[in-house]
């Protein structure tokens, strides 16, 4: 009977066999595997729950308005003040400098790898960039403090502090170059060859074809790579802790020390904030802010990625 059922056209090839022990086994395995996949959903819910729980407690003590508009952050030292703007500004400063470094260099590298490099050069350069992506962030932090900052001091003199935003921004920029280059290259790779050949046929040079045909055609994927890289820079922790220091700062001067949101979270964790204290709750409020910011950036970049995949794949 089972065999007859299987031969029907359009029948589900995965239909259970009718053998009771076998079917039970199949159902158990199906359930176990589903549980593995659902664990990721539970993780997300747990993150949101944990962040919300303490954040709610935080906003019972501090007004939301003060938090989002205050210009002074002093969570650990009296008199306490919880204006998030200096931490957000420190984060924007570091991520902004990182973007200025990583976006042009990463895009240039992507154009070279996708449009110019022959197979042999590609097979050397691509893995090298992948290694760059695999270096732990603590190593980048060490490099910033021991190499980039002293060299900045040589060039710009005493204005450059031992902790400074520029050094942190540069090193985070180097860190996210591979992210921009590899995702942008994927997007350019997906552009059909016929578009390029059409442009050559009209007399375009390689420069014309790259900048006026390939880059516009791959634009949504390229922009997605920029946003993902910036999101990664916003969430970057150890390199920034080591290089930028822990001074909440609204200054425009990149040679000064800044504290990012991530650096504040680490600062609280290094001390021993008791559960329920205002600094412990502030850690979660800042964590929530960071989570919402990076999530928004990631969602936007995924929507953009889905768009270029729709067009060319």
């Amino acid at each position: 009977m089972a065999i007859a059922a299987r031969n029907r056209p359009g029948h589900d090839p995965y239909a259970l066999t009718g053998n009771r022990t076998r079917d039970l086994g199949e159902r158990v395995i199906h359930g176990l595997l589903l549980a593995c996949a659902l664990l990721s959903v539970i993780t997300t819910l747990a993150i949101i729950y944990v962040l919300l729980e303490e954040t709610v407690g935080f906003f019972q003590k501090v007004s939301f308005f003060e938090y989002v508009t205050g210009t002074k952050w002093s969570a650990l030292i009296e008199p306490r003040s919880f204006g998030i703007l200096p931490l957000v500004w420190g984060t924007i400063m570091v991520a902004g400098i990182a973007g200025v470094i990583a976006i042009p260099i990463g895009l240039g590298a992507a154009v070279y790898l996708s449009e110019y490099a022959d197979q042999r050069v590609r097979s050397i350069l691509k893995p090298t960039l992948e290694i760059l992506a695999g270096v732990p962030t603590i190593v980048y932090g060490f490099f910033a403090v021991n190499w980039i900052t002293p060299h900045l001091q040589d060039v710009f003199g005493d204005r450059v502090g031992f902790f400074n935003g520029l050094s942190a921004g540069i090193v985070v920029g180097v860190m996210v170059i591979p992210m921009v280059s590899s995702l942008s290259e994927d997007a350019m790779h997906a552009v059909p060859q016929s578009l390029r050949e059409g442009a050559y046929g009209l007399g375009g040079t390689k420069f014309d074809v790259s900048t006026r045909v390939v880059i516009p055609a791959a634009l949504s994927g390229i922009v997605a790579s920029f946003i993902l890289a910036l999101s990664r820079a916003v969430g970057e922790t150890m390199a920034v802790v080591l290089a930028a220091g822990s001074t909440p700062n609204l200054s425009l001067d990149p040679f000064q020390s800044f504290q990012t949101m991530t650096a504040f979270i680490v600062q609280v964790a290094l001390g021993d904030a008791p559960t329920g204290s205002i600094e412990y709750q502030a850690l979660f409020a800042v964590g929530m802010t960071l989570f919402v910011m990076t999530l928004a950036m990631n969602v936007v970049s995924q929507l953009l990625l889905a768009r270029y995949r729709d067009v060319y794949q």
Partner: protein
Amino acid sequence: MSAQPVILTSSNRQQTRAWISRSFTGGTFLCTLAGVVALSVLLYQVLDEGLARLSKDFLTTLPSRFADRAGFEPAIWGSVWVMGITALLTIPIGMGAAIYLELYAAKNWLTRFIQINIANLAGVPSIIYGILGLALFVRAMELQRSVLAGALTMALLVLPIVIIASQEALRAVPSSLRDGALALGATRWQTIRGQILPVAMPGMLTGVILALSRAIGETAPLIMIGAFQYVPFSPGGVADLPDCASWSDGCPLKSRFTVMPVQIYSWAARPQEAFQQTAAAGIIVLLAVLLSLNSVAIVLRNRYQRKVKW
């Protein structure tokens, strides 16, 4: 790659255009080199600073207030324990989730939701996982600052990466294999275990190794759950594992711990030059471990690509 178009230049304008195109080529090449140069400078700087400090003693002694006597042993064993438990937790769960999503899940809203959710989790900053671990494992489950709390936190962190890499490996298996097995009357699980997994396994393992090697370098989440501490001992050996049945103090999973990147941070955060050298020596050890793990992954990938021909 298409052939370079022949440019017949006579006018100035065409020469200018050809010149712009050539400089653009050079510019993009320099951009690509920038990454390579940065990597070389970084490695040179670390080796230059740390090689002199590297010795057998460094690997086998305890940390110390004195930079020239500070050793790496507890951090090395801490990393081994945390990553070992993390691997045990992530490999079955990550591969299971990937198998479900690729081979079982119907194309409905739930599957799409899980998939989007995993992509988003992969983009959550690692320090957020640290906050989760602090609130959930260290405080709520009262695991304190133990190896187990660290491993559970790291497992959640690497799970999305393992799932995505395993899914890619499963997608590379041709569907003819599956169709053949099903046509012969195998059940779905028999098909997966007998036909699909053996082919996909090397690819999945490559992904797992790369994900774990990322986790070995992670510092922030473990600082969050309290791995930043003076730990003058290693978590113990495999022989102590029976103590875990009663969760008594001899259990290595209950032990306080530090790991390589956190120990490096504690040295690098000190102003003294001698501690910077010690940090550099630690970095050399960490990078050596990462490099060997990556080589294993590459060898595995190459062997797998050579062997399987359709």
